[in-house]
């Protein structure tokens, strides 16, 4: 027994030497790096995302964009010397009532390292007081003005909105240049659309632009013929619509059937849904003439480092994930959210939330959707929201939207790819 112990002790010393040598060799090799790093805990990023319900059409591609970023980072070996990224995701069913409980669980039970907000304004608004109270960094995901009253200094929105009135201002600029002297406002009766409508009213008031029709409609409105008829009777020059995906299709169908009148120079502005591939394919030629906001379009000026590579990956994965085949609107911004925290973590070499927030606030960040810099309220310093007019769209052909020219960019000036065709009815032909 003792002999064996001794012998084994002797072997143990040799083995120790061999193991140490092998360990050193492993650590120096790429395989060794992976093995050593595999033992480190992952960086866990928690979020809810609408995967069912009315916002799921946006939530799913947004999540796919974030997942592609995660896979890219993990393929490069992770962050902070080899910590892999792990996403903790819950379905919030597009409901504002679900998100406070989900984010409490992410913080207190799952104990995630970082938080991403869900897609859209409605599910995000209720979690703002919670993250402010806990002093946590939150990367926003295309919500609009959720921080304007909360004033959380660790909020950073990935959306290109910029100053609150820039969205309405750019749309009304185009309308007024086309000779518009009055405005109609049609908005869904919920947080995002009402925020848009509010800023549009304020901008119109500043410019002495009369609002001749101002109506909110409830979610789940089935038929828009009556509303469009009443709008047409008001004879506006500019029609600003702030709608959500199910309603946008109903409104455009009613416009096609009833008409909005020859006065109208500009129609659209804030219609959510007209950025999603399947909705655009379904609506086809009904889209022609509509001038609507967008975040990314396949124009030359919109490609930055990694953009092309990202869309090649997205197009392949979107098919099996059964999400928006185009993915222009949200997916690259989901990827950019990841790039924001990646750059902050690499620069600060920590996960300290205050340090990350300070870095994000004080620097300009390179992303696949262009450089991003934040103002004090966590929104973009300068607006990068596009206003683009649908032209020459035919029915039932999603591939047409992959080429330039189907959505002509009218704003901002540096990305402009054409002039407005007006009046609206002429642009529809």
């Amino acid at each position: 027994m003792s002999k064996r112990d001794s012998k084994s002790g002797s072997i143990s010393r040799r083995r120790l030497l061999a193991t140490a040598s092998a360990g050193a060799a492993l650590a120096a090799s790429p395989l060794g790096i992976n093995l050593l790093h595999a033992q480190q805990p992952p960086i866990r990023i928690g979020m809810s995302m609408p995967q069912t319900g009315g916002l799921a059409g946006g939530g799913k591609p947004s999540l796919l964009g974030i997942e592609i970023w995660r896979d890219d980072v993990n393929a490069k070996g992770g962050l902070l010397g080899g910590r892999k990224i792990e996403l903790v995701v819950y379905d919030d069913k597009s409901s504002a009532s679900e998100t406070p409980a989900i984010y409490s669980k992410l913080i207190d039970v799952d104990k995630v390292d970082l938080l991403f907000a869900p897609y859209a304004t409605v599910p995000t608004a209720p979690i703002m007081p919670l993250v402010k109270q806990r002093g946590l960094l939150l990367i926003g995901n295309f919500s609009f003005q959720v921080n304007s009253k909360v004033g959380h200094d660790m909020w950073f929105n990935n959306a290109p909105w910029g100053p609150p009135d820039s969205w309405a201002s750019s749309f009304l600029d185009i309308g007024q240049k086309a000779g518009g002297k009055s405005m109609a406002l049609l908005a869904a009766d919920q947080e995002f659309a009402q925020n848009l409508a509010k800023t549009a009213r304020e901008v119109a008031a500043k410019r002495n632009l009369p609002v001749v029709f101002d109506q909110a409609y409830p979610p789940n409105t089935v038929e828009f013929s009556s509303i469009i008829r009443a709008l047409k009777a008001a004879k506006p020059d500019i029609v600003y619509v702030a709608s959500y995906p199910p309603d946008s299709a109903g409104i455009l169908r009613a416009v096609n059937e009833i008409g909005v009148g020859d006065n109208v120079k500009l129609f659209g502005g804030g219609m959510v849904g007209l950025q999603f591939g399947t909705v655009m394919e379904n609506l086809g030629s009904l889209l022609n003439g509509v001038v609507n906001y967008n975040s990314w379009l396949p124009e030359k000026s919109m490609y930055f480092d990694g953009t092309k590579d990202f869309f090649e990956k997205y197009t392949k994965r979107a098919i099996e994930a059964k999400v928006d085949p185009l993915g222009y609107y949200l997916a690259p911004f989901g990827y950019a959210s990841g790039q924001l925290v990646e750059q902050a973590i690499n620069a600060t070499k920590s996960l300290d939330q205050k340090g990350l927030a300070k870095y994000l606030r004080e620097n300009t960040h390179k992303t696949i959707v262009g450089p991003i810099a934040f103002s004090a309220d966590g929104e973009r310093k300068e607006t990068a929201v596009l206003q683009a007019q649908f032209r020459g769209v035919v029915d039932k052909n999603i591939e047409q939207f992959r080429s330039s020219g189907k959505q002509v960019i009218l704003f901002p000036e540096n990305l402009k790819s054409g002039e407005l065709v007006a009046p609206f009815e002429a642009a529809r032909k």
Partner: protein
Amino acid sequence: MDLLLDAVVIGVLLGCFYGAVSIGLSVSFGLLDVPHVAHPAFLVLASYGVYIINEHYGIDPLVAGLLITPLFFVLGLVAYRLYYETFEKRGTDAGVRGIAFFFGVAFIIEVLIIMQFGVDQRSVTATYIGKSWRIADMRIPYRMLVAFAVAAALTIVLTLYLSRTFMGRAIRAVAQDQEALRLMGVNPIKVKQWAFGIATAVLGIAGALLIIVAPVEPTLDRAYIGRTFCVVVMAGLGSMSGTIVAAIILGVAESIVLTSFGASWAPAISFAMLLGVLAVRPQGLFGRRS
């Protein structure tokens, strides 16, 4: 005045659409007392069936609706048998537990649709979608005229079936006195199962209308639970023609409010009308007195 006339015309057409999507529920809930909260989920499922046929074979959505009707009849037979065996047969609180059963069915249907089709909106193509009929200054969407015609046809066929055929009368009898029917040697459960099959089969056509009037998405059923139950209860349980009349009243009220007072008030006005009717006539506008 023109706007008001427009609102009334569109309201009648909208009401007919509401009537068409509610008339199956008038049989299952109104006549059979089955708390069929999965009715709108079956409706959306039928829309997706119509979508598949229209998308792959280019068949008109209404014809596609007719084609899936036999499938939905069988689906109704199976669904009722399952409900009867697992819930209705077992106790007096079948109504409450039945609601849980049908809620479960609705969620399963919703998830199955999401897994198969994803969450995006789907729509169909037909020559009458997106065009309108111009009369003087008024423009009436053809798709709403189709809804009007189909609703009228469904009401006439169902009313004739329930009043002129042996099985139809048996269905009305089972609604009035199940025990009396049993004493006459008829199995009321088989009659109810048949009636539930008819109520579900009707959804084949109604589902076609749903996707003709507007694009559909998997969770659209939630938007129709309130409306369909409101129509059936306001009509008075079990009245086919009453269902259409109640639906038209709701449609016209909604349309006038949308045009004249602001869209936000429309749902409140509709349900206020329901409460008003129930306060004056608890059995509904055309319902039988208990």
